[in-house]
């Protein structure tokens, strides 16, 4: 199975394509066939447009032929099918956010990341399922169906970018884009045995990403290796005049940076935050992560215990800030200009009530109500303002730790993939799933999850590496140091 085109990495495929051993059309056909074969069990996609993808692949082959004739180089992503989370805009394709509210919405414009992927020659492939408006940790909150974990289809793939993770794990895409507000890239990557990277806040433009919580959201890649993740990150990063929160900063050649650091033989100092290894951590997950830490030590890395003392307030602060922002961001879905519009509304107010009652699912409503409450006059100081102060303290915790260490290593998720329906009735238990990932978003840091083993039941476990602001190269190099010593990523689910 690992020999199949659809399970290969971008680095392998780009060489096969460059040598002319495979065409982009053949690759796309392989991915399409695989998708059709497994999608009834995985259900990673909300929709895909096969003719469009095949015509994009043919166009890529033509570009490659022209470049070859002209003797010019093509991007490593030329002709590579990349799945897109259905919350990132691609002109002319549906943009549903897995919500009834946008069930029939087609976006007329490209997100900046989409435009950049297209410019690199990649094929934007399909619309990947998620928790409605990216709110959730299991992809069970989708209005259109639950995505399965390819390692055990009775279990969830994690979320909110569950479709993005499952599609790459199942061979339905070579890589994909997701968005991460509190762990929505890293947690599903961990649960599906792939690499998931959340860049520093401001590294990647958010223009064209349906906002959940604007100050926390960041787009990032899912891939089959650290190198692939670095390749996609390089393609989508950079300042965007359409997003004031994207930073004016040079985008380095990440893979060159990783290689240079490997050559330098630098021994990393890694921090292990004691607060991340307490109650609630599944013993098998803990053991796998501990084994990974031991491996780092074996590689000559210095392992130090660090403290992130405000970790216990992270979930509370997160659910105040994220819901406050979402209550405002989702106000635009009102049935006036686009999207779902209630058919029985009598006046403007009634239109709002009925449209939003019909269009949003329960988790989205819960968060809008919570966010509306914490911003209300008289409560603002006690909740929102206080949460922002906690946020500052959490960032300070990390920056303090980085005076001693280069990166921080933790479990990505406290548990492996759980059964569908297991936590759906208990939102708080679901929220606790993000306990190790949320602090990274609050602090605006880059974080990556890489495969680090399996439980006795055959479920993947992820290792989270947390980097310093805008030091993605170092973060990726630390991740690569572990990745190159094992072959977890070469295991594929049996579907």
């Amino acid at each position, binding site marked *: 199975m690992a020999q199949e085109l659809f399970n290969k990495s971008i680095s392998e495929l780009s060489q096969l394509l460059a040598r002319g051993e495979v065409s982009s059309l053949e690759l796309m056909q392989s991915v399409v066939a695989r998708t059709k074969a497994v999608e009834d069990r995985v259900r990673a996609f909300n929709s895909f447009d096969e003719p469009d993808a095949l015509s994009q692949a043919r166009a890529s082959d033509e570009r490659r032929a022209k470049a070859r004739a002209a003797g010019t180089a093509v991007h490593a992503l030329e002709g590579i099918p990349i799945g897109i989370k259905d919350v990132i805009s691609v002109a002319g394709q549906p943009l549903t956010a897995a919500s009834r509210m946008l069930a029939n919405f087609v976006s007329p414009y490209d*997100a900046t990341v989409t435009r950049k992927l297209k410019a690199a020659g990649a094929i934007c492939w399909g619309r990947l399922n998620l928790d409605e408006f990216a709110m959730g940790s299991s992809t069970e909150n989708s209005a259109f169906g639950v995505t399965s974990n390819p390692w055990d289809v009775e279990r969830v793939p994690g979320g909110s970018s569950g479709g993005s993770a499952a599609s790459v794990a199942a061979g339905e895409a070579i890589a994909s884009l997701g968005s991460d507000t509190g762990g929505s890239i890293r947690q599903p990557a961990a649960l599906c045995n792939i690499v998931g990277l959340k860049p520093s806040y401001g590294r990647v433009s958010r223009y064209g990403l349906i906002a959940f919580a604007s100050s926390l959201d960041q787009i990032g890649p899912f891939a089959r290796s650290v190198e692939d993740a670095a390749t996609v990150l390089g393609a989508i990063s950079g300042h965007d005049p359409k997003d*004031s929160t994207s930073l004016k900063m040079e985008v380095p050649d990440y893979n060159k940076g990783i290689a240079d650091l490997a050559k330098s033989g630098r021994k990393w100092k890694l921090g292990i935050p004691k607060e991340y290894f307490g109650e609630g951590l599944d013993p098998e997950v803990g053991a796998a992560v501990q084994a990974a830490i031991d491996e780092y030590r074996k590689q000559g890395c210095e392992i130090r215990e660090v403290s992130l003392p405000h970790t216990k307030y992270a979930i509370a602060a997160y659910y105040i800030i994220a819901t406050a922002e979402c209550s405002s961001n989702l106000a635009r879905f009102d049935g006036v200009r686009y999207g779902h519009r209630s058919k029985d509304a009598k006046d403007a107010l009634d239109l709002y009530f009925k449209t939003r009652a019909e269009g949003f699912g329960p988790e989205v409503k819960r968060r809008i109500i919570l966010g509306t409450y914490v911003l209300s006059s008289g409560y603002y100081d006690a909740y929102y303002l206080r949460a922002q102060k906690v946020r500052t303290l959490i960032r300070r915790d990390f920056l303090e730790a980085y005076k001693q260490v280069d990166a921080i290593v933790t479990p990505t998720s406290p548990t492996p993939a759980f059964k569908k329906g297991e936590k759906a009735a208990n939102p708080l238990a679901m929220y606790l799933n993000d306990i190790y990932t949320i602090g990274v978003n609050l602090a605006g840091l880059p974080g990556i999850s890489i495969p680090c083993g399996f439980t006795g039941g055959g479920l993947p476990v992820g290792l989270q590496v947390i980097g310093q602001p805008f030091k993605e190269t170092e973060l990726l190099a630390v991740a690569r140091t572990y990745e190159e010593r094992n072959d977890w990523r070469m295991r594929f689910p049996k579907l």
Partner: protein
Amino acid sequence: MTYEAVIGLEVHVQLKTRSKMFTRAEAGYGHPENTLTDPVVLALPGTLPVMNKEALDKIIKAGLLLGCEIAAVCKWDRKNYFYPDSPKNYQISQYDQPLCKGGSVEIELPGAARNVMGEHKRIALTRIHLEEDVGKLNHGEGVSLVDFNRAGTPLMEIVSEPVIRSADEAFAYLTALKTLMIYGGISDCDMEKGQLRCDANISIRPVGQAALGTKVELKNLNSISFVRDGIAHEIRRQTAVLESGGTIGQETRDYDGQTGTSQSLRSKEMAHDYRYFPDPDLMPVEVDQAWKDAIRATCPELPFDRQRRLQAEYGIPYTITSVLVPDRELGDFFEEAARLSGKPQAAGNWITNDLLRELGAAKVALSASKVRPSHVAGLVKLVEAGTILSNAAKEVFIDMFHSGDTPEAVVARKGLKAETNAEDLERWCAEAIAANPKSVADYKGGKESALNAFKGPVMRAAKGKADPKRVDETLRRLLAS
């Protein structure tokens, strides 16, 4: 009991920018519905705002002209409320850190007569902040339509302190503010196009009482005259309520300028909770000294300062400056004509009387006028030198207005040069006297007005080109001999 009014005005001014506040979509008026839009204006999923620097430049300029303190950091907040004319259902605005604080507007109250300068006062400002305008709803039979052309247009809110005491002061305040905005190129302030809008907070209290009365907000004041009339009406209404033993309830009222009446829109209980919070999509922007200095360098002289200078520097009266100054371009026109002619009073007269009259009659804007300051100056010089007579000068002016020719060219083309041949004049006067012995007798008998009988024939003989003063002198001399 005698009451005094306490009035504060909230004025919204649309900034004159090429594009909208947070996107590159064109800003404008009078275009077909929903054509000045883009994904950001329509708040399509995934879109983000990016600040328009020109709008920030203009509010900083307004702040500098009004003597405000300019904040070191420009910060944005979201004002959350649902309304169909608001695409995002929140408005990006400035809540606790307005860009401009303090400052004042110099106003002139009506004088004792139209040609007499009135009292000057300063109306203190609380703050000026920037926000985005909303779209426009059009209500039809059973259906409401929304046009988002206006949505996202940069809008400046200027809030005065509650120091305005009468409808006349409010009128003077708005007039001065409008003049200043146009002077600074900040806004065109055309109220018919909604570029300037005003809400008034009005309360009354017995004279001498420190505590404020309950305020009523008056909305929909869509011309400067309606602001004055609406406030006067509201003061009368509140006075009548109090005098009949009633109490004023805090409410918002809608003023109808056509009928001169108002009605309640909503009471205080329905006030919104806007759930303000900092907009996470926009980074705070630092406003440094260099930026402020660069804008200050583009600030024009304030209108009232200019009026005082013109009166002092050129010695021209209020009757002329009060016409010239409110229009910056007209003031510039005058200053150039005054400089070129060296005769400010005469230039001012030509401009405020003849030029404005002809422009008005022809419905031509000053910028399109064929008469330029050099024409006026040339004409003033010709009259001053006695080359043409004043009645001929009027004819030259009208000709120049339509032809655009120089005054010298018009005089030459029309043969309007004043007659200066003394021999001819002597002869025409002698002939007129000889032809009318009765009037000679009347004049010599002491009837002064008999002299006029000779003037007509002399002017006819001179074809109108004789100087009446010299005709008068010559006739008197001949009759005396």
